[in-house]
């Protein structure tokens, strides 16, 4: 805001001939109050983000700085025995199986969802706008609206028994987990990819077709490469959502604290580990603290995903 008389927010000029009449003063006050309120709310968004990073970070780091746990053990050991008595050598908090579980399941989910999501996006923008608009678009929006516990419940009551009956194992498995996740993140990838493809200049496609390429060639050689960074943004967003999803995953993966050896083995993720144990641990104990460290890893990953998205967006802007 500028202090030059007669200027509000440094943007607009009041008539200099009008002296400070009460009406004008009231107007100016209202304008300033309005500006202050909006700026304060925008600032609140920054404060909130900083507060979350600060509080989760400090609780998570306490494991290493207050309890003196070994970060190498936390990140690279699968020995999770947080309540091992001291006479046996003290508690072990190797969280590797949680971290690996989260990575496996979200990467697999993206491998299913990304091709399918891009297919849907191309279908809506290039193949059949009519069917896309009438059927696929509402479908995708509804998929996005279905709550994650409902996905978890469908996985639990439909997918898990199916896997148990037809493929073996208990059904609570990597397979059930990433299939549920892939349906959940499909709308994210589809809607971003659709926006990107719609935003491409029409000339790209027309030029390709004019040069004699078929529609498929235009899509594969011109449109998809042109939209690649934007589509990757959608894929990373999907990956981030899959990585952070808690309850749906927790319901179908079996939550066994070991590295899975096959796609039919149960596993555990960072989110499901926190969900299961946070309520049962004593505050201030090493076990509790280790869970906060896992939350900190989740937070760090979601910041990393944002940096990745920013990288893709910047590449887009440079084109």
């Amino acid at each position, binding site marked *: 805001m500028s202090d030059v008389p007669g200027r509000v927010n440094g943007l607009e000029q009041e008539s200099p001939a009008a002296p400070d009449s009460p009406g004008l003063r009231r107007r100016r006050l*209202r*304008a300033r109050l309005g*500006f202050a309120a*909006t*700026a304060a*709310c*925008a*600032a*609140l*968004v*920054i404060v*909130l*983000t900083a*507060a*979350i*990073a600060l*509080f*989760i970070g400090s609780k998570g780091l306490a494991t290493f700085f207050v309890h003196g746990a070994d970060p190498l053990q936390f990140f690279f050991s699968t020995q999770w025995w947080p309540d091992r008595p001291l006479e046996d050598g003290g508690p072990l908090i190797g969280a590797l199986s949680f971290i690996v579980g989260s990575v496996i399941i979200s990467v697999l989910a993206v491998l299913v969802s990304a091709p*399918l999501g891009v*297919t*849907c996006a*191309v*279908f809506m923008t*290039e*193949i*059949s706008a009519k069917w896309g608009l009438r059927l*696929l678009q509402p*479908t995708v929006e*509804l*998929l996005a*609206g*279905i*709550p*994650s*516990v*409902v996905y*978890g*419940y*469908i996985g639990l009551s*439909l997918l898990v028994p199916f896997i148990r009956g037809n493929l073996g194992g208990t059904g609570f498995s990597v397979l059930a987990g990433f299939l549920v996740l892939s*349906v959940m993140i*499909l709308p994210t990838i589809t809607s971003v990819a659709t926006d990107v493809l719609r935003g491409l200049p029409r000339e790209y496609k027309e030029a390709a077709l004019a040069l004699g390429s*078929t*529609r*498929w060639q235009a*899509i594969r050689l011109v449109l998809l490469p042109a939209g690649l960074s934007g589509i990757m943004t959608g894929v990373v967003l999907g990956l*981030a959502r899959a*990585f*952070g*999803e*808690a*309850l749906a995953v927790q319901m179908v993966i079996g939550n066994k604290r070991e590295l899975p050896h096959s796609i039919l083995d149960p596993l555990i993720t960072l*989110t499901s580990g926190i*969900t299961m144990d946070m*309520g049962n641990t004593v505050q201030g104990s090493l076990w509790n603290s280790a869970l906060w460290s896992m939350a900190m890893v*989740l*937070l760090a990953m*979601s910041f990393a995903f*944002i940096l990745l998205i*920013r990288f893709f967006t910047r590449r887009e802007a440079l084109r």
Partner: protein
Amino acid sequence: MNNKVKDRLATASFWAGAGLVICVLGGLLGYILYHGAGALDWHFITAPPETFRSGGGVGPQLFNSFYMLVLTMLLTVPIGLLAGIYMAEYSHPGKITDTVRLSIEALTSLPSIVVGLFGLLIFVNMTGWGYTLLSGALALTVINLPLVVRISEEALRSVPHELREASLALGADRWQTICFVILPSALPGLITGIIIAAGRVFGEAAALLFTAGMSSPALDWSQWWNLFHPGSPLNPFRPAETLAVHIWKVNSEAVIPDIRRVADGASALLVFVVITFNVAARALARAVSRRLQGT
């Protein structure tokens, strides 16, 4: 020739992919609503849940979900709208705007369980409230806020520039222009966006496990006006399990014999509400924009 065949094949596979997605959703919705239809009746919707016996309902949970939604929207909409106004009308490219944008992105991509833990730390422990409705609503506000800011900003930015200029040319100042010209014309977009955001909040569960708790006291409707009575439905300082949390809890730790029935019914109810929100958002936006164009 060869390329033509490839083109046909590709087109076919695009149809197949789109068809698959539609089938998946159709299957999911059909499954939920078919199974849920058997469980849904007036008793189920209004009765409190049972702890050990079968035959319980989800009345308090349903009420909690809606009440939580109202509280959350009361907190989010004003803050989000004002921040959206700042981003659309006042912000200049620069460090501050960049930081706000980065914060919005960060909040959007935060796992909701992390927000729940933040809520546990701040709204449950530091305030000394314990598991309460208000703590839950505050946590949901953190989740919902970035969405509402983005919705508001987009809705305001889509208002044609000429409208602003005309208003300013007529001698209105910026704030008047925002209040009386831009906000009304952005209303349809705002309404749709906010209702869809509300639908998201309705289904959120992970953040509530650690903030609003996993239990609900017996609601005493004779005390509804007494905000500080522990059984008052409107008391924001009581624990409140929502419908989404209830589905999770029933499936993971309940000992009632009719888990399937309760979970089926509650899921159908949840999906039904979300669909209603979606349809209502569209209908309302259409009605408002027709009205605006009519005057």
